[in-house]
């Protein structure tokens, strides 16, 4: 029994949101929407949780800051004391620029890395790309997708047509 995706294209974002809500009410799970631009209402219709990225970024930023500060203190004040004109070996103000920059750098790298992991990128192939008309998902098509196990596909297809989908396609994992 292989995994299938049933895809239905809707004419507008409002139609898509209404369809998603109806599909959820009918008890379908593993729903997703594919839109050319972010549509706030689809997030609500799918019941998506808040992103945890801010926490990850905060953690990485603090880690980067601590690392930068400790490195500067350890190298210039402890491991190889650098006496420049009798200035204090450990001076807070001169350590701040690099501490700040490294905090920002670590947080940004974490955000990017986390996005890639969450998206499962880079992964340029996906069964849904087998549907030629799915190309409209990044142009002007609003698609709903339901992932189902084999036998359920016809039932979802019927439901999508009933909800007013312009066209419905089914793709199977590993079909090619």
């Amino acid at each position, binding site marked *: 029994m292989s995994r299938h995706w049933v895809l239905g294209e809707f004419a507008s*974002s409002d139609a898509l949101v209404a369809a998603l809500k109806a599909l959820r009410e009918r008890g379908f799970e593993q729903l*997703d*929407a*594919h*839109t*050319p*631009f*972010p*549509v706030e209402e*689809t*997030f609500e219709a*799918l019941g*998506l949780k808040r*992103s945890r*990225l*801010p926490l990850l*970024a905060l953690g990485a*930023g603090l880690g980067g800051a601590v690392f*930068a500060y400790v*490195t500067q203190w350890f*190298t*210039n004040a402890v*491991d*190889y004391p*650098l006496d*420049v004109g009798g*200035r204090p070996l450990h*001076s807070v103000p*001169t*350590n701040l*620029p*690099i501490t*700040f*920059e*490294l905090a*920002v*750098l670590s*947080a*940004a*790298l974490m*955000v*990017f890395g986390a*996005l*890639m992991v*969450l*998206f499962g*990128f*880079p*992964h*340029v*192939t*996906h069964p*849904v*790309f087998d549907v030629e008309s799915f*190309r*409209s*998902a*990044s*142009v*002007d098509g609003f698609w709903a997708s339901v992932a189902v196990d084999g036998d359920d596909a016809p039932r979802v297809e019927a439901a999508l047509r009933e909800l007013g989908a312009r066209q419905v396609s089914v793709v199977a994992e590993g079909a090619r």
Partner: protein
Amino acid sequence: MSTADPQVPAPGDPLAEHPILEGRHSDRAYSESLLAFVHRPAGRTWWVMLGFGLAGTALLTVAICVTLFVGVGTWGNNIPVAWAFGITNFVWWIGIGHAGTLISAILLLFQEKWRGSINRFAEAMTLFAVTCAGLFPLLHLGRPWKFYWLVPYPSSLRAWPQFRSPLTWDIAAVGTYLTVSLLFWFVGLIPDLATARDTAKTPRARFWYGVASLGWRGSARHWRQWRTGYLLLAGLATPLVVSVHTIVSFDFAVAQLPGWHTTIFPPYFVAGAVFSGFALVLTLLIPARKALGIEHVVTPLHLDNMAKVLLATGWMVTYGYVQEHFFAWFSANPFEMHATQAEFFGPYAPLFWMQIFCNVGVPQLFWFSRLRTNVAVLWVAALLINVGMWTERFLIVVASLSMDFLPSSWAAYRPTWVDWSLLGGTVAFFGTAFLLFLKYVPAVSVSEMKELQREVDASLQFRREQGTRPGGAP
């Protein structure tokens, strides 16, 4: 008054608002019009300009090779002018880069809708400008292949970098700035690369845009994370704009040299960076919007707003000039006062007065709304401001160094052909990179324009239902 279309301003009415988007376009029309230049074979003008750009880049390569194989002695630098063109160009280029981050990050956080049409542009400009900027301190090191000595790594020399030196701060600042700008730009670009993939005309284009878009399929789950991530990167890039140029200004301000040792430098440098950056955005945007046929998304509103930013930052820069010279006088320090007098009446005085004309005088044109939206005036003014800002950086670096404390050590500075080639060469390299960007990357964010059109539609509908006029009065 509900019959008039609020999107169309009455002709000649100075109080009428320009629309943020000209006309009403469907999602498909946006995808097609904004990607038309990318999918069309390049025209003759583009190839000719690319040819010039590549020739200039070749000159840059020659100048770099001369610097590497013969040495920094081929530059006009001397003692006391140990810093000259190299650092001037560095500060100028990195300042230009700041407008990109400002437009995309700060205006995104302020939810300014007009940024959407120009942010991709400005961010690309940032990347190329920072690349050009980074080249100069690297070459100025004299032995660039040992640049990693500035990074703390457990070396066999058993020595660490000196973290009280602004040179090590520069590496952290510029490196971070380049990396974060690149990530921010690319994350914003992924959905549009997917649009380019899906509208591609040839299998080859489809393949390469497919690879570049990493497999984006516009999933709502992805959009939600993408939005948060994009906002976070914007939030992270925002303090970078301020901190990077502040650190660049510390290169000067932490020294004791008259003309450099000024507390006004960090904010003054940041304002100058935004000023010159917006000027360059305008310089490039005005011809590019025509060439790409994107006047429907880059409307007079955008030009008007950017001219206003130039006027505002122009006054901030003017305030910096006033403060700099006021404190030289107020300090009663003879060395500081001499530096100021030398700027006003000394050998570099013509440059100084040119700088005042370009940076203080020219922006005053933008008090007039007619001039703010006149592309010819705007373009020439932006160009003059770019020249003025370069002159300002040059004066700060060279005029201060050439006349320091002791008259016996004074010396004039003359740039050599290598100096000029490095400056011109980076301009050409920047132009080349920008041409390639226009050709291969959607220059205006397609998904954001669609989202913006949806918001405009919603607000127009709201107004129609409320029966209000665009000004807000019932």
